[in-house]
């Protein structure tokens, strides 16, 4: 019984792993192909089914007609995503703490309305926001700049941070903050010395969402930049020409997905470590 169960369990896990890993292996295999290997049917194993070529990878660091240089778009994407995520997470965490601990009332507007206002920013289709953002950035001469993109991305990522962190703070007992104040902290001191250190899991989840949404955004990066501040998703699309260079596209895709995958592996442990066990009973 136990052995059969284990065999079924491992077969299921193997099937799932294959399902998850296969696209990456396929992209990796394709990145080492040349035009002939791509067009001559399904071949996956280098040296056995096709002769590997590094053309897909070298073209990413070339310039002019030889390919497109990935370094600058990569750095642009990293700068915009990191800056916007940090600002969003900082402001979003403070806003979420306020919404979860204090009652606000202005006319008919209460805490739940404020939270919904934040989330509603994500309900609107991006195209509705595109023209106002474009005009506003044009007005402050921030089109096609990292600064302009950071402002727009903060506006897009802030609702995510507020939403995730409000929900997370609601799960932290209010008595924990109260105890810190009884023990001599100011309200803001209680937040920084007690609540925040116990919010690792929430911060990691909110941070990951911000990084993923920021890093993968194509629409606003495409609308609000031209040539000076190209981001990675736009650079990948610009590779497309009359003959699609699948080898370069695959290498590009692998490079663009690697940072998020690495971050996810590193922060995964903090998501379970941020437990509130032992806080109360």
């Amino acid at each position, binding site marked *: 019984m136990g052995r059969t169960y284990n065999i079924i369990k491992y077969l299921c896990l193997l099937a799932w792993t294959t399902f998850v890993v296969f696209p990456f292996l396929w992209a990796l295999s394709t990145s080492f192909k040349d035009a002939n290997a791509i067009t001559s049917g399904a071949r996956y194993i280098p040296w056995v089914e096709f002769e590997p070529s590094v053309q897909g990878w070298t073209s990413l660091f070339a310039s002019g007609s030889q390919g497109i240089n990935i370094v600058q778009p990569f750095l642009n994407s990293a700068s915009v995503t990191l800056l916007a995520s940090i600002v969003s997470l900082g402001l979003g965490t403070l806003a979420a703490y306020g919404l979860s601990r204090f009652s606000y009332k202005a006319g008919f507007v209460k805490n739940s309305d404020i939270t919904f206002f934040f989330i509603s920013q994500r309900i609107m289709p991006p195209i509705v926001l595109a023209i106002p953002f474009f005009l506003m950035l044009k007005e402050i001469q921030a089109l096609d700049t990292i600064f302009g993109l950071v402002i727009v991305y903060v506006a897009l990522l802030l609702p995510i941070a507020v939403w995730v962190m409000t929900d997370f703070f609601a799960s932290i007992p209010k008595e924990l903050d*109260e105890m810190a104040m009884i023990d001599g902290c100011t309200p803001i001191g209680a937040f920084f010395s007690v609540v925040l*250190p*116990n919010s690792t899991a929430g911060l990691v989840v909110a941070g990951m969402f911000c990084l993923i949404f920021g890093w993968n955004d194509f629409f606003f990066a495409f609308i609000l930049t031209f040539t000076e501040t190209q981001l990675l998703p736009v650079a990948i699309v610009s590779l497309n020409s009359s003959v699609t260079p699948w080898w370069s596209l695959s290498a590009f895709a692998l490079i663009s997905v690697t940072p998020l995958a690495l971050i996810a592996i590193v922060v995964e442990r903090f998501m379970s470590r941020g*437990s509130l066990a032992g806080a*109360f*009973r």
Partner: protein
Amino acid sequence: MLSLKNLSTADRKRPLSNLNADLESGKIYTILGRTGAGKTELLRTLMGLDDIAEGHLALDGEDLSKRPVRKRQMSMVYQQFINYPHLTVLKNVVFPLRRQGYSVEDAKERALAALSLVGLAGFEDRMPSELSGGQQQRVAIARAIVKKSRILLMDEPLANLDYKLREKLREEFPRLLAENADGIILYSTTEPAEAMQLGHEMIVMHEGQILAKGAPEEIFEAPATVEVAKLISDPPVSIVDGKVAAGRIILGATEFTPPPDLVLPANGPVHVGIRPDALSVGGDTTARVVLAEFSGSDTIVHLSLSFGSAVMLVEGIHEFVPDQNVSVSLDTSSLLLFSAEGKNITERRSNG
């Protein structure tokens, strides 16, 4: 002295209503009441965690209502074992001391002494999540007592601890108070025995109001109202409806001759309080057993009598079967009489 004058709160769940009390330095006050009586709300209001809607709260004449929580010279132990989960046991206890301005070394020394007091020496480097429930509560108690605050508020702090440890910590509270002659300890509990053993004075609460305040023995001997009588003992005082007529106490169809020292009120309806030990097996009144429980050394028997329900406390372990009929007698010398409105009208002539 901590003074509460006409203190009310606007809490939606359990508002406190018009509380008045003067709490003197150097005393332990136990707050007795059922769950939902307003004990926690009172402690939270004193601590400054809940707002005062009306009335005044003053410490030595100084208005406390404007003073922030951290400056109230108070500590509090919650019933729910609140600890800082990201800090070790030692750092949990050091936390308030560092905010009071103690040096690292000083704070550590005091924290170690407090941990030793609550029986947690050797647990300094553990995380709260690695401790049992009782140990976690001891960390919370150590963190509260280490500050040596003027006022120590304890919200059913021993409810989840084992018997031995409760005894030990109960013994420590008077000693803590002795170290700080200006100190006031407020200790809430649902257990009458604990309230009476521990408190120099007892405050009885019900539905957000203070029903009685005074020495435990005085409140026990002469509970001010029917509600207080129901709360001050476990098993509780049974309240049955009766009347006084022709110099006798009449309960249902049974007439009882009052003891000679009891001054009977004017003829009319009364509520009669029967202490659990006033009923005993053997006599001319028949009762039906509803439920029998063992409390370790005694047997608590819930009876249905012709005039109502009552609880009888029998010394020792005895077998009673539900629906069994037993003969009981009522010792009228400890009866309590309450007016129809519920006020204690028991009056006894002095022997002299």
